[in-house]
């Protein structure tokens, strides 16, 4: 750990010395670079001017980090958030704070040529500040599994990794199609997705998990809720009688207690036939390349294949 810090520090010093050496030229260079910039429209309709093949990118959400590593752009990542823990190499990258509270000073001091933000982390203020500093901010905003695939293609365009992006996106589409094909004619079980017991929190209509459940051949009993993550009535769960309960498997802290589910919903078909499907939350709530893996796991849970 100390060693890697030192390496980063040395890299820094070297970089700043290099920057200092070329200082005389830098002015004319910046203007020619600015002229070279290409305009892109990001996920929320902003126009972002990005230099071709950005080299010092800062990624402010774990799903974005996963996408960039999948695009083989690991070497060009200058900073990530503390929540960016996949792949393993992401953990050694410079941390610029957590997803909701990135450190603006740290971001600026890393001299990024592109910052990528996900709308999920609600960083409108930060985006505005970086805009004022003329640091290009690209916002991704996928709202469904298909849009995740599209966002990967778009990020490929922005970063110059078009071919690799196409490769990943095509493969994702093939796997999504395969799942759809398999579950197409099967009856759709009623699904309760539990974010947590305690107060019972489920997922509403406009969430990723709802889209995943639909694609995986189920239908969520809270899929008609307009609020994204409502505190939900236990009575309604009992009355709507879910056939499968899907819950994130715990990350050290136990958000969903199986004993609570058994105590509150003993009459539901899901509990009576013991169908609780535990999913790795990182696979279903990070809109990145692994979302397909989450979809396949979910489909397997809803429609187990006979061995």
């Amino acid at each position, binding site marked *: 750990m100390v060693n890697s810090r030192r390496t980063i520090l040395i890299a820094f010093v070297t970089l700043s010395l290099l920057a200092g050496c070329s200082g005389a030229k830098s002015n004319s260079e910046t203007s020619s670079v600015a002229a070279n910039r290409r305009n892109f429209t990001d996920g929320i309709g902003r126009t972002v001017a990005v230099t071709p093949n950005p080299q010092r990118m800062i990624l402010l959400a774990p799903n974005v980090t996963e996408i960039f590593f999948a695009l083989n752009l690991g070497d060009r990542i200058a900073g990530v958030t503390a929540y960016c823990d996949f792949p393993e190499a992401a953990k050694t990258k410079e941390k610029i704070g957590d997803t909701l509270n990135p450190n603006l000073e740290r971001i600026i001091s890393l001299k990024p040529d592109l910052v990528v933000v996900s709308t999920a982390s609600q960083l409108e203020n930060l985006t505005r500040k970086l805009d004022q500093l003329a640091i290009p901010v690209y916002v991704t905003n996928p709202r469904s599994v298909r849009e995740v695939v599209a966002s990967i293609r778009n990020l490929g365009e922005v970063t110059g990794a078009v071919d690799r992006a196409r490769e990943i996106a095509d493969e994702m589409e093939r796997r999504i199609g395969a799942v759809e094909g398999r579950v197409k004619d099967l009856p759709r079980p009623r699904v309760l997705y539990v974010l*947590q017991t*305690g107060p*019972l929190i489920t997922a509403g209509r406009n969430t990723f998990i709802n889209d995943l459940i639909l694609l995986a051949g189920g239908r969520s009993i809270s899929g008609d809720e307009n609020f994204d993550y*409502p*505190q939900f*009535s236990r009575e309604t769960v009992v*009355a709507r009688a879910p056939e499968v309960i899907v819950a994130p498997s715990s990350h050290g802290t*136990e958000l969903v207690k199986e004993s609570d589910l058994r*105590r*509150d919903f003993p009459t539901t078909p899901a509990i009576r036939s013991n169908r609780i499907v535990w999913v790795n939350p990182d696979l279903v709530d990070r809109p990145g390349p692994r979302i397909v893996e989450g979809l396949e796991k979910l489909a397997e849970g809803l429609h187990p294949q006979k061995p």
Partner: protein
Amino acid sequence: MIVLIALSGALAVCAVVALGLGSEHIAAGQLFSALISKLTGTVPPLSREQEVIVFSLRLPRIALAIGVGATLSIAGAAFQALLRNPLADPYVLGVSGGAALGSITAIIFASELSLRRPLFGFAGAAIATLIVYRLGKREDDPTHLVLAGVVMSTFFSSVIVLLTALADNVKLRNITLWLLGDLSSGTIEGLIFVLMAAVIGAVVLITQSRALNLMMIGERDAFAMGVETARVRWVVHLTASLLTGAAVAAGGAIGYVGLVTPHLVRLAAGSDNRLVIPASAITGALLVLLADTVARTVLAPRELPTGAITALVGAPIFIYLLIKSRTVP
């Protein structure tokens, strides 16, 4: 006595009505015969699902609302009488803050064990009480206690803010819900705990209510009339604090009930503590029961935090009382 009987009757009626209300409709007649068959030990005419909804989801929650409302209101009435301060309530005295801090510590650092949250909450209330009592003890001047309470409250909430800044997303929402009061995630253990606290606390405080009546005139006069003021002060303060700890541990930090209920009762029935304390218990139970019924039905199947409703109703009631007390000299 008539007041108490009337209030108990109203509470019983409301509890039965609340049992019939919820996001899932159950016909009144069906519910009624189900209740009767439950009492006589025959099989109720409900489907398995309806039975779960009424008897294992609604009933414990209604009982919890009653227990929490009664406990907070008894504590509020006792504090207001003891400190001769109409603003005194468990929040002002730092007790709720201590309980909240304890519970939140448990949510953040020890969420695996369901019993820890009530225990931590209760311990927090006890520690806060000791600190406030030590800081604010003056022979005949209760304002010091209130000041000490206000200071400690502020301190506790700043620690809570600090802790929430360190907590991750999901826990953050849990904490927020819990700070607003959340009766949906009550446990049977918590329920039994708070109901026992309500009964024991009410008995202890009613035995002290005559002494409290005398002390409201002035502690020296009460002392002259043979009241062991120091002992009464200590017993009442401790009991009311522990009651608050139990309520907050079981149902979260539900605001305004402990403050407003005793005022309403005194307005209607005078300020004799022998009546105010038990009447506050029943009225508080009624208020929280109504608030919680609204919280779980108004946006069904979504649920709202109970404390948001009590604050929404409690604040205007308090303002009304304030204006009224100004116009009537």
